[in-house]
């Protein structure tokens, strides 16, 4: 009988890990709490830097993991450590036995309504990066008008912010903001687009080319300074006040749409799962790996592995790479024990 590995979470990390484990001859089981696979990336439209469609990636991942046993809309109630493995009790009553557990619970998008001064959920034209991706993917959104003349992006909403409870950088939002700014400029070529940033973090392959193109080809304006407050004027347009740090003066502009780049925080369910597998939560709120350079996918507890955003903010290629590493580590652990 094939040895089984329980994968908690059916997002990019979980699916890629399942596909690798299948290729290695093991029997992965995916437990996913929502009604669909693919996690957050399934809601996304296009991924940087190649602007490849997210749905293609998800379809490919789902297809290659289709040999795994998949539970949707299911949560884990309890995990018990046995002599040579683990048993997981699901909330539908099933009990599963496995040799190793792979935690792929991912991240949670910061609730932009917590930054009250930006008026998300209060003013009609304020949306988040996720709302915008849904709209690109074809969803209706009455907050986005037919012909916005001025659009703004606010970087670092819920990231690098002691008051928001998350001091870490969310890594991907600067690139996402530039990608979305370019996509909006293609849809509304006559609009002026402003990105309000504190720092621009464009660290990966071809990311700087995106920035150069955004400035040169699309004429997107980058204003270094924080947005302090948003209000509505008599016409219903948003009056946005920010500090223009390079000139040292306050700045205000009227916009028809404001996109808040909500950051990545650890999924609230992760702490529950962590206590079940006796993994530690690090002081940045994410799970603590055995170390942060060589053994990110290992937890330090035997048979428990991590992959993806549950240990810290990750891009999609990093998540895929970690999922493969975690699958291989789990395989070696299982075969080593046998």
């Amino acid at each position, binding site marked *: 009988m094939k040895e089984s590995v329980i994968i908690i979470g059916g997002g990019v990390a979980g699916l890629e890990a399942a596909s690798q484990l299948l290729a290695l001859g093991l029997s992965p089981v995916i437990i996913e709490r929502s009604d669909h696979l693919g996690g957050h990336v399934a809601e996304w439209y296009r991924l940087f830097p190649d602007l490849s469609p997210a749905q293609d990636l998800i379809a490919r991942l789902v297809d290659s993991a289709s040999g795994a046993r998949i539970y949707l809309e299911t949560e884990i109630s309890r995990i018990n450590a046995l002599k040579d493995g683990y048993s997981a009790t699901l909330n539908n009553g099933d009990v599963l036995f496995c040799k190793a557990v792979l935690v792929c619970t991912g991240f949670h998008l910061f609730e932009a*309504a917590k930054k*009250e*001064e930006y*008026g*998300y*959920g*209060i*003013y*009609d034209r304020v949306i988040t990066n996720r709302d915008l991706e849904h709209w690109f993917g074809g969803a209706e959104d009455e907050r986005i008008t037919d012909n916005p003349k001025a659009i703004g992006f606010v970087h670092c909403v819920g990231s690098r912010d002691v008051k928001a409870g998350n001091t870490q950088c969310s890594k991907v939002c600067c690139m996402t903001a530039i990608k979305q700014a370019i996509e909006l400029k293609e849809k509304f070529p006559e609009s002026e687009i402003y990105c309000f940033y504190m720092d621009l973090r464009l660290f990966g392959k071809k990311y700087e080319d995106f920035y150069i193109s955004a400035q040169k080809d699309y004429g997107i304006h980058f204003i270094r300074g924080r947005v302090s*407050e948003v*209000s*509505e*004027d*008599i016409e219903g347009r948003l*009056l946005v006040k920010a500090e223009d740090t390079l000139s040292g003066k306050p700045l205000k502009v009227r916009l028809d749409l404001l996109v808040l780049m909500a950051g990545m925080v650890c999924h609230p369910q992760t702490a529950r799962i962590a206590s079940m597998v006796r993994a530690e939560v690090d002081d940045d709120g994410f799970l603590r790996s055995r170390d942060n350079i060589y053994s990110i996918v290992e937890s330090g507890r035997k048979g428990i592995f991590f992959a993806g955003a549950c240990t810290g903010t990750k891009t999609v290629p990093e998540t895929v790479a970690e999922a493969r590493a975690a699958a291989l580590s789990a395989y070696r652990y299982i075969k080593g024990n046998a």
Partner: protein
Amino acid sequence: MIYQGKQKIWSDYQKEIPDNHWFYVRSCIRQNFFPASEKYFVKIVRDVLGKDLFETEHHTTCGGIAYHSDTIPQETAMTIVARQFSLMKEAGYKNLVTSCITSFGNYCEILETWREFPELEARIREHLWKACRREFDKPEYVAHASDVIYKLRGEIAEKAKIRLVNRETGEPLRVVEHIGCHYSKMFPHKGVGGAEYPCVLSGMVESWGGKVIDYPERRHCCGFGFRQYLVKANRGYSVSNTHKKFESMEPFHPDMIITNCPGCPYFLDRWQYVIAEQTGKTYGKDGYGIPALTYEELAGLVLGYDPWDLGLQVHQVAAEPLLDKLGVAYDPAKKYLGLNEKDIMKPGLPTVLKCC
């Protein structure tokens, strides 16, 4: 504007305000600018609503003006406040209600400082003992008088003689609400509704039938700021802030402004005269200004008291257009008559702002 979004934030910042047995401490300056406000607060809470509101003639300033003007150190202000607490303990009360919003901020700040630094509290106890042989207990609850009116707004609405509806158009009255900075900007959780969207005044206005207007500079300070304003050469800076607020609220054509601070209605009311003289511009219709009322004056109007008893004649901006819109009965001839209808003479009139 998505109203439910605001309601959700308000529900995060609710306070458990006690509804009876209050120890009242007055403001240093309010009785000069808005003479009847405190009198009517006492009258409404005690006589009309039958609650227990106690004040002693031995209480003093809280030291807030001096502290914020940098003329006394914080420890002195703390000792003055400690004496107020000891008077409250003597009278047997646990709930403190302040008339002034800077007082409210001062008391909150001092109690928070004592919570974080208990050795400072011990030192102040010593100071108070040495100064006047008094001992004190910290109050169980500190509220601002507008919190009390907010809590009792439903009872006031039941007894109301008029609703805040514009008789000329049939629409609810358009009210701009202005909250004093020291209410919730320092400690958002001590203000009803938090710092960004406080609802203490908008709750009152809406339960009395009016409509609250949101405009871009709603959160902006009126510019009072003590040490800025006290020196004459600096007043340009203060008046520019009020000017900014008026320029921002003008397109929305509000009928009145409601405030809950001593300094703010003073500024919003008096500066309209200065702005009119300096720039020639007025913000109301036909050369009038926008009346700036305190919440006690508005509560008094809603309960049917005579506007001249409420002190509205002392306002720089004429309240008559507002009274006409609300349908309040008033006698224009009695406006500048004193007690027992004694003639105390009329004030001089400004050149630009229309006052009657």
